[in-house]
């Protein structure tokens, strides 16, 4: 799972969002580091929909603009949780590896 796909799935963890809402939430989650362009966003959404991790969940017109909402499926939620565990395990392993590094000059 790419970082962008993971962030898009996390952005939907609290409920359905439309495309622009996802872009904003991804910026917040990544602390400004990841800014999805529309082309990238819809490429990621297409792949997640194909994988049945995300589904379209209604649309509405706001201020004359079409908003299609996307939500996380149960499969998508499960995949997000599993990926988060993997990342957490990796972070713990990385932390151990880095703290076990001998300090220069003490060997």
């Amino acid at each position, binding site marked *: 799972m790419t970082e962008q796909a993971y962030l898009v799935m996390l952005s939907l963890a609290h409920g359905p969002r439309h*495309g622009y809402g996802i*872009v904003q939430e991804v910026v917040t989650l990544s602390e400004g580091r990841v800014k999805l362009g529309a082309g990238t*966003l819809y490429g990621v959404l297409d792949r997640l929909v194909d994988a049945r991790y995300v589904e379209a969940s209604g649309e509405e*017109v706001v201020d004359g603009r079409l908003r299609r909402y996307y939500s996380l499926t149960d499969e998508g939620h499960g995949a997000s949780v599993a990926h988060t565990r993997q990342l957490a395990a990796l972070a713990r392993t990385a932390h151990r590896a880095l703290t076990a590094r001998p300090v220069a000059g003490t060997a």
Partner: protein
Amino acid sequence: MSAEGAGVEVRFARSVRRWLVAYPPRWRRVRAGEITAVLADLAAPGATRLDVRSGLGLLRAGLATRRRMAPPFLVRMKYVAFDWPLPAQYRPWVDDQLRSAVPGQGLLTTPMMVFLLWGLPWLMGTKPIFDLTFLVLYLLLLGTIASSRGRGWQRQAGLRHLVPQAGEEPVPGWYIKGLVFHPRLAARSGANLAAVFFGVPAVVAATVLLAGGRLLHPLLGAFVLAGVPFALVGPVRWRHGIGRLPAQPARLVERASGRVRRIVASWTVVISLVVVAAVADDHSWIASAILGALLPVLPWVVAAWARTRGAVPDELTLVDLRDLTVRRHVQVDVALPGPVLWLPGGAMPAGAEHAPAPSGVAPA
């Protein structure tokens, strides 16, 4: 919803539509309004065009989407080279192919193509394919034939490639075999096209033959005379028949679309060029033969064109004028079998041959 209808500044929406060109047509039909709205939200207030960086991102993503939606090469070849129906997951891709202006599939599979590519040069023998004039005409002809796929072909191809095959469950949101309207060209629009198609090459042929010092063959006069009775009888029968047209519930009367006009214009240009090239290359018999094929129909076409200059009912079609001339009465069209979209949540279309599926997943 169309991009322009998405509450977005019209020039901005137009700019986005241009940048979306790399996406597959089906994707654009479903998502254009939505992505345009997102891009408008991301753009600076008052923007009238999409910035180049975002546009390039759309081009890149569009190409990636096109690659992702296309079948693998070998699967694609089954359709392109052998016209085999593909598995259900590739039908959206096939749908795009059938709607495209020049279906690539037609270039390889039409028997006419096979004949033009290999049979004709072989029959002509002495004519090397590397002759520039021949090659240009040849390519023009290929392109014109390939792009001349009309509604009838689309309908038949849709039945073969888009609707569920035997043993498959139909799904809402996708095509199903049903009944479609019988499309017919409106009389005025059709007569205009016929006048161009038959008139222009005939005038070109007569002109180049005379200018080249070739006498018009006396037989050509006989061809014209053969067509004159229809041109005389037609208007008489139209006078009585046009006011008594039968109801046509299964018919869809249309004016020629831009696509149809382009097809007719292409054929007119190609035939005229063939005539000019044949006379220039001392094969004036080709020009005479083409002229001979056009002349018997031309008087009737001129009569039909002249009649449709005046007031005619909207429901009158070119086929009706032909039927009235030849048969004295107009045939009532029947609905045709064709692919019909089964709208999600809607009832199964009339004439559908499958029982409704209790549930299903619409294809992407």
